[in-house]
């Protein structure tokens, strides 16, 4: 970021949420870079920025789409970059229909399932056999392995399934038809132009509440600071992700950055500012339902053999490193099951449990409420305060047979049964709650050794400073011990269900305290040779991983962190003794590369786009790539190389294919597969919106995941009866002095004193409209809950004109919870939130909701429930409200009824 010439921070309050990282924004500014903050609120980030652009929360795709349109109509795209490195010239199926043709939907939508069949979004390609080019119903492995995307999609029903593929996206045809003139109406370039043609400055004013002058400033800033000599960087956080089309927010920015030639270059890119010390690591080595380590998918029931599974990830004919998914898979299975994983048993593939749909935290929540889940582990997390619809979270806990809470202190998720809000309201009685609760005290970050992976994929080792006190344990020690005890109890079992547990490699060296050695675990993650002269030695690169069982490795993208038996995560050459890449501080995946896809920092001939922005380049004399960073490209692949016909994998990468994890080596302006809600981002309104969608008859994302239940009611959006009952938007956020749900901050007297109580930020105009007083109390009511907060009246909140009306937005920090153990407590903002999810990644829409606000404290006891119910009844809410998928009244489409079995009382 320090190398950027312009930084757009949107969907993030970086100065407050990542204060120390923000020094690099300040460095860029000191060097003359322009800083723009696009955000509903004026924050400390805004205070440092050159410009604040207030925006109606949830309308970001309109703004970014209009920037795409501006770049295209003013011919400001980086032509040589776009032509060489993106799929702009690729032809899309003639069956494809855009949102412009279908009132806001793409072709392939099935209203009965609420899902898309992406077959018509595929590339056109030369037919290699008699199969139709959009044959989406082929079973994996049946197609004789042509380089045909849909034949390898692995999803027999042809539905788009976002969670099923790894970081490089799904398989796609490697040799599609192209029109280098970019004139064919089926080219990605022309489709893109048409798709965003109505995303104009006027539309931005209408949808986002942003003036045309502010839009012009933003558009000029990013285009004047992009190109050969200059780069623009975007930074976002959960302000972009926590929406019913959050993944598409980021896609829109990706398209824009590809058009401007800002990907893979110093000072460019899109920075994901993540909020937890190892939230990147816990995605790489996932405690997530849909993934195995290294972005390998968890297998689905229809992938019955390991060949099916691997074929669904990648075909051997596609370009790039995902073609080696077989090697990554076999090595993982060898790492987990050792000698029990052999070629004749599919490398123990059947030891892996299978998915049959989404099993995310919110789906699991409804399973708990239905008494289908008995036991629940909560590990350094506080869902009673931190997850959406807090009441549902706590009620779900009361349905469990047992739960384990591992934390430093008695967080609200451990004490809801004695002092939670539902005890006060009378909805739960302690003496009637059957749930057993085990509280285990956890070791802190200085009482154990191990690695965090920070937001730029950098692994940093923490040395242990002291032993854990009392009963406190690391998760490493707890789970290792739990695994030993479970295996001991099952050791005489003849039940085949227990074989995966008994055959599991579960033998780690322990220290004097009996705790397992984290370095031994890291060595397993890194991987090692199993045969040959190097037997037992650590692997040094993921390119050494084999599919024949001769290597093992727990997470292929981390291979190299323990190269030569050296813990490179602990590399600590001081920054002042290194260049700005600082390659000898920690270790970044993959292969210690600090900027991904950095082949794109050089032109197609291998020369840096400019001296000012050089990073890696082709050294003709040495016949290899070199530079300041480690090249993210086959090191000896010359720029002009044309891969031989019939090759696959890394060998199939041409010299100008910088995006080495993509099946075609290109940056995707148009996503022919992989996104479940459309190949191009289109603007849809949030689940709860104060305006009608100004772009399409289709109001919300038609594929969003719905939870139509009485305990998760949705407020009526504009134009629907009852909309006036919840007239104001609210958005949730963090403060510098607190951390998420407070488990690591509200127990610290220093931090509790700095931010002692829950408050709401409102504009002077809204305060006047509702009679709110500075420092007085306000009660906020949503269809899910009512909470109270101190009133902070501030001009930092700007009423916006959007949809022909004044839209008021209320800001709510979400750090407090109801309990008696923390130094400070208060009502939880997340209790107001409903649960409606992005269909790609199953994340909740927590950045936008509708509510009412009124002066005074909330009622106590049963009167609180009565108040929430009175609002619901006045608005006429039912589980159907706001849960229609298709909202175009001009069309007669079915699919408005609730799917059977989705209603519930919780």
């Amino acid at each position, binding site marked *: 970021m320090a190398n950027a010439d312009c930084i757009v921070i949107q969907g993030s309050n970086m100065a407050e949420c*990542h*204060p*120390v*990282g923000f*020094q690099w924004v300040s460095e860029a500014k000191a060097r003359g870079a322009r800083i723009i903050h696009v955000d509903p609120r004026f924050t400390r980030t805004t205070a440092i920025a050159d410009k604040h652009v207030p925006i109606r929360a949830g309308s970001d795709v309109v703004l970014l789409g209009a920037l795409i349109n501006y770049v295209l109509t003013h011919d400001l795209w980086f032509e040589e970059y776009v032509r060489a490195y993106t799929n702009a010239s690729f032809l899309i199926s003639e069956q494809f229909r855009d949102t412009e043709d279908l009132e806001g939907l793409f072709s392939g939508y099935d209203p009965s399932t609420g899902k898309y069949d992406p077959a018509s979004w595929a590339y056109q390609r030369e037919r290699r056999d008699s199969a139709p080019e959009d044959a989406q119903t082929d079973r994996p492995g049946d197609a004789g392995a042509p380089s045909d995307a849909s034949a390898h999609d692995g999803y027999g029903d042809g539905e788009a399934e976002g969670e099923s593929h790894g970081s490089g996206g799904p398989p796609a045809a490697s040799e599609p038809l192209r029109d280098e003139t970019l004139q064919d109406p089926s080219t990605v370039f022309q489709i893109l132009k048409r798709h965003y043609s109505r995303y104009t400055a006027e539309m931005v004013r209408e949808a986002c509440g942003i003036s045309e002058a502010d839009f012009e400033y933003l558009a000029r800033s990013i285009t004047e600071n992009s190109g050969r000599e200059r780069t623009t960087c975007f930074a976002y956080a959960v302000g972009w992700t926590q929406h019913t089309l959050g993944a598409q927010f980021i896609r829109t920015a990706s398209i824009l950055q590809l058009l401007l030639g800002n990907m893979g270059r110093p000072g460019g890119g899109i920075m994901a500012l*993540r909020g*937890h*010390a190892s*939230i990147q690591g816990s995605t790489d080595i*996932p405690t997530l*339902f849909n993934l195995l*380590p290294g972005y390998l998918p*968890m297998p689905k*029931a229809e992938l*019955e053999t390991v060949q099916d599974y691997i074929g669904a990830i990648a075909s051997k004919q596609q370009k790039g490193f995902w073609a080696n998914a077989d090697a990554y898979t076999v090595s993982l299975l060898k790492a987990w099951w050792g000698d029990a994983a052999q070629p004749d048993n599919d490398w123990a593939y059947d030891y892996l*449990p299978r*998915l049959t749909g989404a*099993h995310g*935290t919110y789906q699991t929540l409804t399973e*708990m409420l239905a008494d*289908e*889940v008995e*036991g*629940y*582990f*909560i*590990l*350094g997390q506080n869902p009673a305060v931190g997850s*959406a619809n807090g009441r549902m979270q706590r009620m779900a806990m009361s349905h469990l*047979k047992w739960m384990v809470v591992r934390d430093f202190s008695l967080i609200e998720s451990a004490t809801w049964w004695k002092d939670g809000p539902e005890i006060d309201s009378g909805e739960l009685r302690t003496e009637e*709650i*059957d749930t*057993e*609760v*085990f*509280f*285990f*005290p956890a070791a802190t*970050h200085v009482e154990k050794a*191990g690695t965090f*992976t*920070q937001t730029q994929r950098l*692994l940093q080792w923490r040395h242990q400073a002291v032993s854990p006190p*009392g*009963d406190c344990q690391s998760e*490493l020690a707890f*789970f290792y011990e739990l695994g030993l005890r*479970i295996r001991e109890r099952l050791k005489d079992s003849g039940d085949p269900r227990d074989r995966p*547990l008994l055959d*599991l490699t579960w033998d780690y060296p322990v220290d004097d305290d009996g705790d397992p050695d*984290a370095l031994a675990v890291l060595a397993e993650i890194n991987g090692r040779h199993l045969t040959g002269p190097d037997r037992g030695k650590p692997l040094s690169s993921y390119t050494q991983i084999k599919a024949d069982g001769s290597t093992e490795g727990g*997470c292929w993208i981390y291979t190299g962190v323990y190269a030569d038996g050296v813990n490179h995560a602990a590399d600590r050459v001081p*920054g002042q003794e290194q260049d700005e890449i600082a390659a000898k*501080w920690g270790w970044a995946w993959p292969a210690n590369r600090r900027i991904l896809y950095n082949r794109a920092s050089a032109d197609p001939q291998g020369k840096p786009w400019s001296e000012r922005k050089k990073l890696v380049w082709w050294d003709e004399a040495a016949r290899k790539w070199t530079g300041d960073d480690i090249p993210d490209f086959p090191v000896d692949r010359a720029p002009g190389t044309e891969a031989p016909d019939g090759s696959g994998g890394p060998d199939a990468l041409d010299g100008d294919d910088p995006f080495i994890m993509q099946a075609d080596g290109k940056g995707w302006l148009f996503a022919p597969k992989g996104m479940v809600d459309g190949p191009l981002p289109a603007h849809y309104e949030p689940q709860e919106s104060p305006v009608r969608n100004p772009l399409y008859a289709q109001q919300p994302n038609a594929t969003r995941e719905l939870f139509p239940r009485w305990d998760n009611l949705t407020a009526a959006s504009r134009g629907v009866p009852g909309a006036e009952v919840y007239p104001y938007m609210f958005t949730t956020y963090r403060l510098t002095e*607190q*951390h998420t749900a407070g488990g690591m*901050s509200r127990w610290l007297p220093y*931090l509790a004193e700095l931010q002692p109580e829950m408050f709401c930020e409102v504009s002077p105009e809204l305060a006047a409209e509702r009679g709110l007083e500075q420092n007085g109390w306000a009660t906020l009511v949503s269809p899910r809950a009512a909470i109270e907060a101190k009133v902070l009246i501030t001009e930092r909140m700007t009423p916006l004109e959007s949809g022909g009306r004044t839209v008021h937005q209320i800001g709510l920090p979400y750090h407090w919870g109801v309990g008696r153990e923390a*130094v400070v407590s208060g009502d939880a903002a997340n209790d107001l939130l409903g649960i409606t999810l992005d269909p790609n990644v199953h*994340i909740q829409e927590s950045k936008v909701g509708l509510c009412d606000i009124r002066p005074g404290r909330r009622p106590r006891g049963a009167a609180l429930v009565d108040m929430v119910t009175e609002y619901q009844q006045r608005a006429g809410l039912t589980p159907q409200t706001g849960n229609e998928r298709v909202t175009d009244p001009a069309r007669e489409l079915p699919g408005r009824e609730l799917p059977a079995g989705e209603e519930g009382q919780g």
Partner: protein
Amino acid sequence: MARFSFLEWPVVRQLRTADSTARSSATVSEHTRELTSRNATADRVVQSVCPYCAVGCGQKVYVKDEKVIQIEGDPDSPISRGRLCPKGAASEQLVNAPGRQYRVLYRAPRATEWQKLDLSQAVDMVAERFIESRRRKWQDQDDAGRRLHRTMGIASLGGATLDNEENYLIKKLFTAAGAIQIENQARI
């Protein structure tokens, strides 16, 4: 206190020393001169990483008598260059928080209060319940007869504040047990 000396008068010191404007050593009292940083008394200093957000600021952990006495920013870190935010700067208090729990607690069904429980016994009880719930909610195959080999009886939430090695063991153990409802903050 040392014996009084006219030479120690601030104004005299101001004239005697190079600090003629009295903005430096001339105004420092003997008491202040004798103070030492608590960090200087540490037995050892250990390099660590801040546990809050994902910037990954370097920390130096000062340990005395096997207790953490202070945590400060690490100037060597090319990421943070010695700086910490209010949370990172308060992280000594995370380790030594007044409300921190050091013992296992157990709440029995319908009980109104916690009770103490031996750590080893608690792990045994969890292992027993794990195996029972796993079996009770086991699914061998789906309606189409396809293999599932999983349990829906056990769920887990957490990982974004944990180490990679810990997440690895958690995922490995749960997956081998057939538990799939394993999630963390990255979904939230």
